[in-house]
């Protein structure tokens, strides 16, 4: 009963949030002198939305991007967690690897775009890679920080119980590092979408990033907005899933300031 009221309130807030946004947007476009091919009105975007939903193209491109994002996220996540464990445990590994990891982060995708296209082809793989690459780092850092925040007394406890390495990971390190790790996942989930879109900008013939490019090419700013909103929804959805996960996995955490 209580949680039902809670849900309604939450949805209420979200709606309020959206309605306020829409009103601001309408006011802005009405009173500013920005033409609609630069910043369209809500109604134009709405019409375009209906069109691309009806002809199925929105669905198609969203599916493509979603696929890139999910696979990229999964890949980046796996790599980050494994590397995170290694780096948190071994200073040697950390010293040798960390310059390469930071380097891999700061190389602009477009600079290595030719290599990506040559090695991975123009298809979906390069987008998955860019997505995975951008997810990797925040999750990695937060995995390490999370692992370092495990209280050493609990390590002693696990050792005294002759827990295997695997049990120590599953029963102590994962739950203890979870709050910080999930913070990394929040960041990663949001960046995964950017990653895929950046990959699509470099060269693609499908996906929401491609749709943005098409819209820009056609000066169809309403289409750009539709694609961007879909991207935003995708990111919000992923973010929401992480928050949902957090709520369930971290229910034990006492919140301060409540």
């Amino acid at each position: 009963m209580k949680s039902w009221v809670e849900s309604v309130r939450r949805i209420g807030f979200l709606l309020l949030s959206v309605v306020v946004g829409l009103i601001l947007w309408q006011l802005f476009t009405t009173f500013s002198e920005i033409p609609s091919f630069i910043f369209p009105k809500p109604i134009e975007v709405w019409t375009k939305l209906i069109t691309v939903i009806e002809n199925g193209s929105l669905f198609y491109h969203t599916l493509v991007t979603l696929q890139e994002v999910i696979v990229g996220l999964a890949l980046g996540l796996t790599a980050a967690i494994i590397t995170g464990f290694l780096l948190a445990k071994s200073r040697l590994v950390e010293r040798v690897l960390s310059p390469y990891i930071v380097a891999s982060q700061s190389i602009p995708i477009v600079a290595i775009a030719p290599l990506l296209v040559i090695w991975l082809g123009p298809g979906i793989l390069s987008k998955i890679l860019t997505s995975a690459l951008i997810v990797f780092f925040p999750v990695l850092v937060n995995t390490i920080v999370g692992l370092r925040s495990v209280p050493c007394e609990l390590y002693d406890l696990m050792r005294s119980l002759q827990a295997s390495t695997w049990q120590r990971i599953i029963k102590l390190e994962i739950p203890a590092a979870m709050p910080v790790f999930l913070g990394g996942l929040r960041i990663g989930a949001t960046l995964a979408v950017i990653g895929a879109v950046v990959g699509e900008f470099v060269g693609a013939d499908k996906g929401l990033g491609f749709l943005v490019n098409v819209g820009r090419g056609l000066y169809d700013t309403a289409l750009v907005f539709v694609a961007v909103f879909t991207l935003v929804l995708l990111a919000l959805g992923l973010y929401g899933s992480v928050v949902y996960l957090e709520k369930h996995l971290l229910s034990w955490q006492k919140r301060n300031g409540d």
Partner: protein
Amino acid sequence: MNSANNHPLLEVKDLGVTFTDEKGSLQALIQIDFSIAREQFVCVVGPSGSGKSTLIRVLAGLLKPTSGEVSLDGIPVTEPRPGVGIVFQKANLMPWRSVLRNITLPLEINHIDPEEAASRARDLIDLVGLSGFEDWLPHDLSGGMQQRVAIARSLIRDPDLLLLDEPFGALDALTREKMGTELLRVWRARKKTVIMITHDISEAVFLADRVLAISPQPGNLRLDLTIPLKRPRAEEDRFSPEFVDLTHQLRQAIK
């Protein structure tokens, strides 16, 4: 550990522990020698900071001594071993696990059937007086209740050797006595060996076969006192001249 051989269960030889960091070093324990026979109940007393917790950590195999050697059952202790139950000075509960699941943790690690584990845990929860709190999180428990969870957890594997670091520190007199009595019962019924740190000298004399007194920094074995009081002991014994004399000796030793 069930082999009935002749050497003592635990032997500590010329043990020394020094903590070193950038700022300098601190000699926590120095030249500790003692051995403990099977099924003995030994209490360790000593002033705050004298190295009692450090000693327990070494005996448990959690800390490598700087010098000297510890052997359990004739085998040098280099890492924690099965058959040893530990209560740390802090409760060290996992904040994300309920009371019940904190207590079943050692059994989980031994891959014991969850049903079975839960039923054994429930018995212990009864024992430590926490029935009804099975599903509570450590956060919402009082200090003493947390400590009782830790005691239950140390007992769940039915260990032969119990290492207890001030297990009753946060307990009121009554609960403390009750837990002491329970501990004695378990010790006698199951033929365990117990090494327990306490800051209550009277409690040490009341419970133990033998009390080790550690001097302040650097911690050194000042007195190794056998308690000749007959068992079972009663509350009234605390006022017997023999009891008072023993406590007095110990007080003098750690001054």
